[in-house]
């Protein structure tokens, strides 16, 4: 169960989806993104659907090759040649982004829909000062004098806890430390008060102590400013610190979705269970073999016809090989794409196998 937490409404504040006001900010239906490779077509994101509600943080977790980053790029319309969104609907405030003209989408990105990427080193142009980049960014989206734009930039830098913002505006990105650069990147994302921010592994390139600072900052900002957040990470610990709900992806498919605490505490899908169990924690018993997932991620050519996890799943039955399970409600507010989900009252098969 949930541990009591400090302060009112911690980051994992349970979000009652049914009681949420109005419409979802973002609604993704049957998103399928494919890439052309020499070996043929590779489906990086396979029929994935999810919603992001106002003020909520949806975490997307998965290992490399799970399609979590490609899903984010697909929403932003940034999937590069030789890839493309092949099917699905991406509704942002009711508007289908796939039907938008490129200019309209470009205007939307960065204003109402913002991004923070993994590497703050490459996200900023080394040739221009932070201030120049921030003001140009504002003025690319709306009419504003340099003065107004600078004022806005200063305000946002202050908001993300950058001390002496006027001074930082005159600095070049390479003069800043990694943590500071990521704060600047977040400030840029906030410039035009977005309704949704997509953060793709924003803490992965950072050191542990800085990682904690950025996580804390994002949680705090979300609470104060009320934007929605998609937080993509491979680190279950970080996701559980930020997200309200989590979507677990494996080999391009969504395998589980639910409130973050319950999902990690009592996973329904054997893959989630195995992922949770295989990460060493401060509570793991030293030296005892870690539970591992046998085998490896199926390649583009050997994806099974049925459940994508079947070849590595200790619970797989013949039906799992034959039939692809849909992501369907298993418990109230919780969904899993599994023919035999791990129900809480089931005997203690943890869904993990010894490697």
């Amino acid at each position, binding site marked *: 169960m949930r541990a009591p937490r400090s302060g009112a409404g911690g980051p994992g504040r349970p979000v009652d989806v049914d009681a949420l006001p109005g419409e979802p900010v973002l609604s993704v239906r049957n998103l399928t993104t494919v890439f052309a490779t020499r070996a043929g077509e590779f489906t990086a994101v396979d029929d994935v659907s999810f919603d992001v509600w106002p003020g909520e943080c949806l975490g997307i977790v998965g290992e490399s090759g799970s399609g979590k980053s490609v899903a984010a790029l697909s929403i932003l319309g940034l999937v590069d040649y030789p890839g493309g969104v092949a099917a699905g609907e991406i509704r942002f405030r009711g508007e289908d982004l796939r039907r938008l003209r490129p200019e309209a989408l470009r205007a939307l990105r960065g204003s109402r829909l913002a991004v923070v990427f993994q590497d703050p080193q490459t996200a900023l142009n080394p040739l221009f000062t932070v201030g120049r980049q921030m003001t140009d960014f504002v003025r690319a989206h709306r009419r504003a004098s340099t003065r107004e734009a600078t004022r806005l930039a200063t305000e946002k830098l202050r908001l993300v806890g950058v001390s002496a913002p006027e001074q930082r505006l005159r600095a070049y990105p390479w003069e800043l430390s990694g943590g500071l650069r990521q704060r600047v990147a977040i400030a840029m994302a906030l410039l035009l008060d977005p309704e949704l921010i997509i953060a793709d592994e924003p803490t992965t390139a950072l050191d542990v102590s800085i*990682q904690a600072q950025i996580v804390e900052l994002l949680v705090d900002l979300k609470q104060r400013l009320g934007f929605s957040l998609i937080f993509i990470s491979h680190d279950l610990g970080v996701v559980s610190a930020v997200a309200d709900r989590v979507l677990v992806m494996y080999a391009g498919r969504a395998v589980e979705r639910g409130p973050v605490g319950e999902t990690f505490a009592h996973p329904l899908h054997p893959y989630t269970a195995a992922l949770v169990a295989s990460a*060493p*924690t401060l509570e793991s018993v030293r030296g005892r073999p870690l539970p591992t997932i046998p085998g490896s991620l199926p390649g583009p050519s050997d994806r099974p016809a049925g459940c994508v996890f079947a070849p590595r799943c200790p619970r797989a039955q013949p039906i799992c090989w034959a039939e692809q399970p849909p992501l369907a409600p298993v418990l109230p507010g919780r969904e899993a794409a599994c023919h035999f989900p791990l129900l809480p009252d089931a005997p203690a098969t943890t869904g993990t196998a010894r490697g």
Partner: protein
Amino acid sequence: MAEATEAPILSLQGLGMTFRARGEGRRAQTLRAVDGVDLDVGRGRVVGLVGESGCGKSTLARTIVRLETPTDGRVLYEGTDVHALAGRDLAGYRREVQLVFQDPYAALPPRMRCGEAIGEPLRIHRRGDTAGRRRRTAELLDLVGLPRVMGDRYPHQLSGGQRQRINIARALALEPKLLVLDEPVSALDVSIQGQVLNLLGALRRDLGLTYLFISHDLRVVRYLCDEVAVMYLGRLVEFGPTEEVFARPNHPYTLALIRSIPDHEREGLGGRVVLRGEVPNPIDRPPGCPFHTRCPMARDVCAREVPPLRPVGAGNHRAACHFAEEVSDAAMVAGRNRAAGLP
């Protein structure tokens, strides 16, 4: 402890590494990457070396395997200075100490089949004939749990975990005694990390290896290592048996590191302490204790005097803090509170 009486297999004595940094202006700047590190690695032990990027842990590893020559101090292997070795003795050292890199793909020659790469150390040290080397390569593949056909593949045809197994197999080819592992699982996915950690654990047990295990991930270090050394800005700030250090950290930096670990078993920020500020630039090292600029309990003396690494608590637990005893008290209180579900 029994190990205390036996001579360590590896001993760093006042190890220091200064790089000349070509900074702006005329002033020649120096970057002190490693600063007076004393560290013993006992035979058959797994010693973890943790710290954030830029703390000097990788430079330390590179001086041990002679990719860099230290500017101060010595690296003693079995009692002899590693950097004074030459000829036959050096070849012997090359056989007994190996390095495993963080990025398993970059560490393999891209145009060489994996089996050939594993056999390279054998060829260089003229071990056995062609047939013998082929046998040994197959044996090594078995040892790291890879099917033998993997020997015929190229690195780009393998997954990350398989590549790291190939790297480990190559490192083991000459039957080394000491493995320096520089972030060997950091580039791998969570589920693959577990497999490689299990392999490392089994190899150590079966082959009686000694590891110097470098990582920024305290969860992994706590899981695998017997002893932990914590580095900050080039200095060793705490050393001790793993259980001891994690249960009763005696340096505020160690405490902060442990408590900033995101852990899905500890939801949210409930039990977390976020360390303020960032690691200072090693070119402008603060005077006194290197950590005092970020330390929540720093006092006047910390800005003036460098605290020595001194014995604290049980075993050979040592910490470089003027107020080490207060840290462990604070840690105990925090631990109790956490157990009781208090903030």
